[in-house]
């Protein structure tokens, strides 16, 4: 981490010294407002930009700049443009994708937002941007004892990093509680309760940067799913079986020294405040045969609440998780087929299921979704609203002969905002459903036929009397 801070420092120094050669673009930001939410372990940044084109050439895209350290932890960038005035205001989502710039100073990374229509000279537009950072809160001290609260650092810049000139800007930082140990002063900056306000700053040139560190108490459970593998198995006999295997970790400050159960039990508020023992998994409605277990058997501490909209599964790992502790478990359930599988054309079907992880408010470092199509299905294709790594596998289960096609989707850094539906299309002939029952029936028939034959023939050479 020290190296990262150091490189950031070099980067900032270089930025400040370096000449602003990248300001070739004719865009200018009239007003920028940024709100950084540090209330959980997922950092959400809401950015409102008012952009004006000052050059003749119409602008088709707007660049968002990120320092390289932040870019690596960027889970999601969403952009929208405001259409209409006041009452009729509505948001139209825009496409945002990472891009490379040859003239980027000091490894600055970009996301480019394509505008709906090119921005002519003198025109302005309002952009709403949300980006989410994971693993950006660094616990300090790195190790805490059972009774200590968890303190973390957040690094950012007081001035918004941008390839454009920003005329007017302000930043609000929201911390989970009033306990803020320290924050970097960049005048004007002040704090009121759990809110930190940087700015307003006027007239900063492109690539201006002013590093800040906020040191504050954050006892939010830092639940991180290091690996999650979801297997969605489609059976045309009426059910979709989902198995999710979790590798959960507490990614906050590491637990140090003794763990005393008597303290943990007698002072629930004062001991192990950053630890957690409950997790809430939100499952689809009408689930059946839910199970929650790990490799050594059933875990008895869970509650299932069902209603017509959704199913909530309140799970407790075997032991409370303190900083650095890990746990693995498995959640499985079945859902009715008709809720998720639809026929698009004769013979062609698609599965519509939610991407992401069932457990609320967690970050998934590595998510693998395996959609197991029924045996004999053909031409699988996937529709996901964001970039994922795709591959195909074969799986053999219950009496398969030719194997089932498995569509594998992989994505890193998944946050709750990724919980959107995705579709898997494939072609399937219902006759394949009968293959296995027929196979079983014929096997038994042959078995009985063979025994009948065996009982009726006499293999002895001499006739017995």
């Amino acid at each position, binding site marked *: 981490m020290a190296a990262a801070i150091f490189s950031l420092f070099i980067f900032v120094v270089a930025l400040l010294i370096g000449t602003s050669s990248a300001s070739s673009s004719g865009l200018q930001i009239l007003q920028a407002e940024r709100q950084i939410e540090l209330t959980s372990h997922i950092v959400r940044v809401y950015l409102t930009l008012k952009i004006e084109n000052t050059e003749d050439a119409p602008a088709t895209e707007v660049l968002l700049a990120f320092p390289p350290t932040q870019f690596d932890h960027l889970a999601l960038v969403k952009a929208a443009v405001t259409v209409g005035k006041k009452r009729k205001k509505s948001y139209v989502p825009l496409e945002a994708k990472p891009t490379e710039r040859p003239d980027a100073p000091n490894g600055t990374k970009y996301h480019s937002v394509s505008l709906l229509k090119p921005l002519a000279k003198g025109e302005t537009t309002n952009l709403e941007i949300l980006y989410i950072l994971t693993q950006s809160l660094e616990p300090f001290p790195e190790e805490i004892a059972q009774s200590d609260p968890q303190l973390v650092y957040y690094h950012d810049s007081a001035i918004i990093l941008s390839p454009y000139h920003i005329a007017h800007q302000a930043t609000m930082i929201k911390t989970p509680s009033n306990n803020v140990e320290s924050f970097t002063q960049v005048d004007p900056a002040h704090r009121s309760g759990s809110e930190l306000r940087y700015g307003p700053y006027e007239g900063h040139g492109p690539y201006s940067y002013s590093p800040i560190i906020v040191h504050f108490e954050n006892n939010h459970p830092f639940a991180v799913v290091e690996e999650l593998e979801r297997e969605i198995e489609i059976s045309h006999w009426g059910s979709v079986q989902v198995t999710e295997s979790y590798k959960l970790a507490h990614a906050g400050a590491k637990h140090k020294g003794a763990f005393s159960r008597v303290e943990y039990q007698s002072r629930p508020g004062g001991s192990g405040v950053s630890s957690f023992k409950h997790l809430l998994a939100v499952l689809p409605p009408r689930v059946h045969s839910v199970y929650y277990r790990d490799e*050594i058997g059933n875990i008895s501490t869970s509650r299932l609440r069902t209603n017509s909209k959704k199913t909530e599964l309140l799970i407790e790992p075997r*032991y409370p998780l303190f900083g650095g502790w890990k746990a693995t478990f498995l959640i499985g359930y079945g859902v009715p087929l008709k809720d998720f599988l639809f026929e698009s054309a004769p013979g062609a079907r698609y599965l519509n299921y939610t991407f992401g992880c069932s457990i609320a408010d967690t970050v998934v470092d590595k998510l693998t979704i395996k959609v197991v199509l029924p045996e004999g299905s053909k031409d699988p294709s996937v529709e996901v609203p964001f970039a994922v790594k795709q591959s195909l596998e074969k799986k053999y*289960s219950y009496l398969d002969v030719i194997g089932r096609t498995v569509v594998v989707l992989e994505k890193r850094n998944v946050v709750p905002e990724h919980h959107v539906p995705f579709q898997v299309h494939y072609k399937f002939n219902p006759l394949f459903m009968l293959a296995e029952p027929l196979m079983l029936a014929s096997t038994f028939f042959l078995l009985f036929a063979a025994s009948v034959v065996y009982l009726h023939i006499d293999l002895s050479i001499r006739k017995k009397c």
Partner: protein
Amino acid sequence: MATQETSQSATFRHAFGNVLSFAVLLLIGVMAFSIRLFSVIKYESVIHEFDPYFNYRVTQVRLVFVYGIFANSFLRDQFVYPLGRVIGGTVYPGLTLTAGTLWRILNSMNIPLSVETVCVFTAPVFSAFASLATYLLTKEIKGAGAGLTAAALLAMVPSYISRSVAGSYDNEAVAIFALIFTFYLYIKTLNTGSLFYATLNAIAYFYMVCSWGGYTFIINLIPMHVLLCIVTGRYSPRLYIAYAPLSLNVVSIRMLNITFRREKAASSQASSLISEVKLGIVRVVMVVLGTLLAALVPVVGFNAVMTSEHFASFLGHAANLQMSFSNSVVFIIIHVVALVYYIKGILSPQMFKVAVTLVVSVGMVVCFAVLAVLIALVASSPTKGWSGRSLSLLDPTYASKYIPIIASVSEHQPPTWPSYFMDINVLAFLVPAGIIACFFPLSDASSFAVLYIVTSVYFSGVMVRLMLVLAPAACIMSGIALSEAFDAENFLIKAGDTTKVTQNDVKHEKSEDTIKERSSRKSKKKDKENIERPSLVSQVEKRLLVLPLETSVIAVFLLVLLGAFYVVHCVWAAAEAYSAPSIVLTSRSHDGLHVFDDFREAYAWLSHNTEVDDKVASWWDYGYQTTAMANRTVIVDNNTWNNTHIATVGTAMSSPEKAAWDIFNSLDVKYVLVVFGGLVGYPSDDINKFLWMVRIGGGVFPHIKEPDYLRDGQYRIDSQATPTMLNCLMYKLSYFRFVETDGRGFDRVRNTEIGKKHFKLTHFEEVFTTHHWMVRIYKLKSPRNRIRGKTKKSKSKSGTSTSSKRSGTRKKNPWQ
């Protein structure tokens, strides 16, 4: 015309009976399987207890992680650190191979069951097979009716259920099947004289040898039976064929030549030359097969049996001597007898008489010589040729007097009377009737059954564990008794039916009735009507009875009642008594069911939050579970072959903190795990087992003395306890900060307040305690921290002495 009709209907009836018995057997199998599923339904599909976890681990490693020979070396390092355990030589491979093969077959058919699932359901599946084997065995002894009854009884005998519920993945799970099946094949060979069955018998016996230490029971029982047959003048070539191949498995290679020659003598009974040659070839194959098979099983390799001291081969030790002794003696005897019969066939009566006197006089001399040599050999060995366990088999109180580690295991205690009633229930009352029935008439097979029950009753009296051997015998006997009783009653009810109904009809009705009765009794449904209705309908007008009709009906009714009681008891035992997996505990209170899942909580914690090569020390009971569930290397485990090692841990637990730290540190232990039930009232915790630790530790390290831990001969942990007790590691680790839970430290198991309430740990650190405090895990403080703590304390005294002390104590090995 009439005869043709009868024969036709007879075949029809025969076929119908076969189908019926097949259906009944199928139902019995289903029942045997399903009665053992209570544990899965009430709890979950997990491996139970302690030893099964080891078996599961071995299976898992052999199948999933590493293949073949590497598995053994991989496993060796995981158990009993730092000594390691030679898996190949101390594990019966039968069970793991069976489950492994099942798993492979299922997987090759693309049925993706996990290894654990297969292991959990191995025992119920094999108990269904065992019922089938019982049917076959009893059928050989007393006919199909008795067979079905015995199979039904065995399917639900509580003693067997206790060892074969789903999840009880232990050697006994498959071994009981192998035992009964071997007996069946032996009897079958005895009855038919078929070499085919003899070969099967050798293979079944080999499987049994692979599976369980109880194989010595077979190899002692069968020679005894052979001897009995010879002594009672029942020698026949069939006996020879039944016994000889089996004994080849255990008789040493040196016997090979002699065997071959003797076989020829035996085969002279066969008439044609072809069959003789064929026989000869088969026997050669058998000899090779037998010796090879015996040599293949590493556990049974003579070295292993002689040296290894594990519980599984409890019987093996008693039989060490007998095995070679009784076997070779009987083996020689049977050949002598065979020779005598052969010679008798050749010679004229006078010549034979002369030969007999000659042989007898020479034989006497030889016998005396052999006996003298044997006595000299036995007397010259320091232990008189008997190991501790063999002695305890002869004298049940021996172990508790001299070997604490054997006595500390509850299943090695002699049983109490209630446990007989619990485990075999009404069978205990039916057995004598069965024995009587076996004597009318006494055949080779039924004499074997009698011998079996008599010996197994003795063995079960020595050790609770061997009740399992008694159960099949009791079932067979009771099956015979019940079946005979029903036959008799039926006969009485129907006797005198001469005039109105044709013989054909009577027969038909009778056989149908009996089968129906049995089947219905088995499937425990509406027995009364079934029996009474047909009998009353057809027999109302009959008056020519030996016993009054009413008496017979009442007798039948009482028998059915007895059976019903048995069924109720078995279902209760299966559901309530024997289904708890023991790693999950439940308690019912006014506000519902409480689940105590602390063991797995602790194991899961260990598995996820400690380093992979950390060593965990705990009392040996939890060794297998720690290895299997927490995947950590343990210091001692349930394989108790190394008494010294266990004693070391016992010593550490009974020592004060400092000495214990030294012992554990020298063993490279990182974590110490104790089980503590004082908060929730879990009685089988480490404090209650603690005296055994003291005894076993003190047996090897004399500075641990049991009286130091007892106040006036009483074991107590309250304020009257001795200072040694209050300062020992086990006390401290169990009660560390316990007083803070309720303010006074009231132990709910011992029902007393603890003696020493406020104390600190200097060399250990609490790192985890489970929700109900049942498992507490401590970490050994690293030497640096420990010294720092010490210097802080003794700063006022002197700063320099500690460092020298440290270097002095660190490397010291406390038991050398």
